[in-house]
């Protein structure tokens, strides 16, 4: 993993934090909590005593004298009477006493009770903090024990640069990959661009259809490149049958298709067809915000919704769900395409990616969801593709 993705590091959590240490920390925190609990119970006892005393002080002056049993020594009592029931000698603390009436005493006790309550409150707050700490330590320990890994990846690249780097990465690597694949990929790129154009021509039906048609043809070529060439021109024929005209933009793209790469496609779109591009641009712009996603896939998929399915077939694995929803007529073609694409996409070792990527993917998916919730499934697949290219 680490060698495959140089920008991230994966370390088992256990190597950073030993399980025993985390457990020890948790234990220590628990001890601290116990201490606090003791203190709290102590204070609580004080509070109840204080309350009892408060009641007693209140009731004592109700009568002039109270008959009581006076303690005499340790074991003896003798009967007596409490007189001066409204006079108290109150311990203020630190050896200071004061003569007070019942009411004054009650006030003092009340204040004392307030102080105790506030102390108890602060203690409880402390205990809550400590408990949070303890649970954190415990979870860390268990995570370390479970063999959780820490994945670190520097977030440096901004969206625009990211796109460039991606396309730059994928191209050379494709070449380094097996030739067939490389060719197929470049074809795919062109096709995607074409799709985008077609999509941008959305409102203009003729353009759209024609571009789609061309895309289909290109697609066929791509398929031939692949070992598993499952979907033939014939199968595509019906879906694309209604598109007969050739759009200028399509022609231009066809003349030198290899020139148009991911980034190029967008620029091209903007330059050539002004009005229709609005859509494509907006879509691609949204895609940009999603750092790791391949822009074209997304944009095509987005627009693919509006148009018919033949375009989508080029970028198929990405679109499963969407295609199904949007393009009923293409259903027959789709499965084959999907299969082929799967094979393409998965020629690389995907398992590795799925391991290394999770944190990234989740963040991406959140990004994606903003773009379009239906696009979510596209992300992992395209990512794999990209990764494969990068390998």
């Amino acid at each position, binding site marked *: 993993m680490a060698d495959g993705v140089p920008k991230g590091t994966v370390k088992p959590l256990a190597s950073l934090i030993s399980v025993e240490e985390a457990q020890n920390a948790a234990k220590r925190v628990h001890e601290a909590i116990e201490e606090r609990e003791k203190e709290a119970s102590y204070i609580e006892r004080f509070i109840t005593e204080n309350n009892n005393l408060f009641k007693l002080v209140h009731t004592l002056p109700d009568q002039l004298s109270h008959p009581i049993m006076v303690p005499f020594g340790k074991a003896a009592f003798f009967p007596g009477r409490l007189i001066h029931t409204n006079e108290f*000698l109150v311990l*203020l*603390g*630190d*050896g*200071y006493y*004061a*003569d*007070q009436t019942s009411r004054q005493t009650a006030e003092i006790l009340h*204040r004392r009770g307030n102080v105790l309550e506030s102390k108890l409150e602060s203690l409880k707050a402390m205990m809550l903090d400590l408990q949070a700490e303890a649970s954190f330590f415990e979870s860390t320990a268990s995570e370390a024990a479970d063999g959780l890994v820490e994945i670190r990846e520097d977030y440096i690249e901004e969206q625009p640069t990211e796109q460039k780097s991606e396309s730059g990465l994928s191209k050379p690597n494709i070449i380094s990959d097996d030739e067939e694949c490389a060719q197929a990929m470049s074809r795919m790129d062109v096709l995607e661009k074409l799709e985008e154009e077609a999509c941008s021509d959305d409102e203009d039906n003729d353009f759209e259809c024609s571009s789609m048609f061309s895309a289909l043809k290109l697609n066929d070529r791509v398929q031939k490149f692949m070992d598993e060439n499952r979907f033939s021109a014939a199968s595509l024929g019906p879906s694309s049958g209604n598109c007969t005209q050739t759009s200028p933009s399509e022609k231009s793209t066809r003349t030198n298709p290899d020139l148009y790469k991911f980034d190029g496609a967008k620029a091209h779109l903007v330059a050539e067809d002004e009005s229709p591009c609005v859509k494509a641009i907006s879509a691609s712009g949204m895609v940009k915000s999603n750092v790791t996603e391949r822009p074209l896939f997304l944009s095509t998929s987005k627009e693919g919704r509006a148009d018919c399915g033949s375009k989508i077939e080029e970028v198929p694995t990405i679109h499963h769900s969407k295609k199904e929803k949007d393009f009923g007529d293409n259903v027959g073609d789709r499965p084959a395409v999907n299969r082929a694409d799967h094979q393409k996409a998965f020629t690389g070792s995907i398992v590795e990616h799925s391991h290394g990527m999770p944190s990234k993917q989740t963040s991406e998916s959140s990004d994606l969801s903003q773009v379009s919730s239906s696009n979510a499934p596209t992300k992992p697949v395209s990512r794999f593709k990209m990764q494969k290219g990068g390998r």
Partner: protein
Amino acid sequence: MATSSPALREAQHDLETQANALSKLQKDIAKNHQVRKQYTIQLGENELVLKELELLSEDANVYKQIGPVLVKQDLAEANANVRKRIEYISGELKRLDGTLQDLEDKQNSKKDTLLKLQQKIQVLQAGKSKS
């Protein structure tokens, strides 16, 4: 260890004395903490007393317990006494903080020296086993 070189023996002796010093320091620190805690409690109590004394009416009888007897005191006098006591305790707390800081610094330096000594001994022992 009977075969250990004089250097190694000396180092171990050194380590022992240093460890003893460190444990002594730690005891001191613990004691200091204890005293400090007590003082904090007393400070809180005295502040409570002061509050209560200020709330008392002018002609209230105030007693101070000295040993087994209660000695009657003037309210103003008691007030002044408590204030002085609070001042004293605060000063004491500050002093304790200073000494505590001092002790902790010493403890850290001792720990460092101990670590170095341990490493030295390890090196010595490694050399011994090799030769």
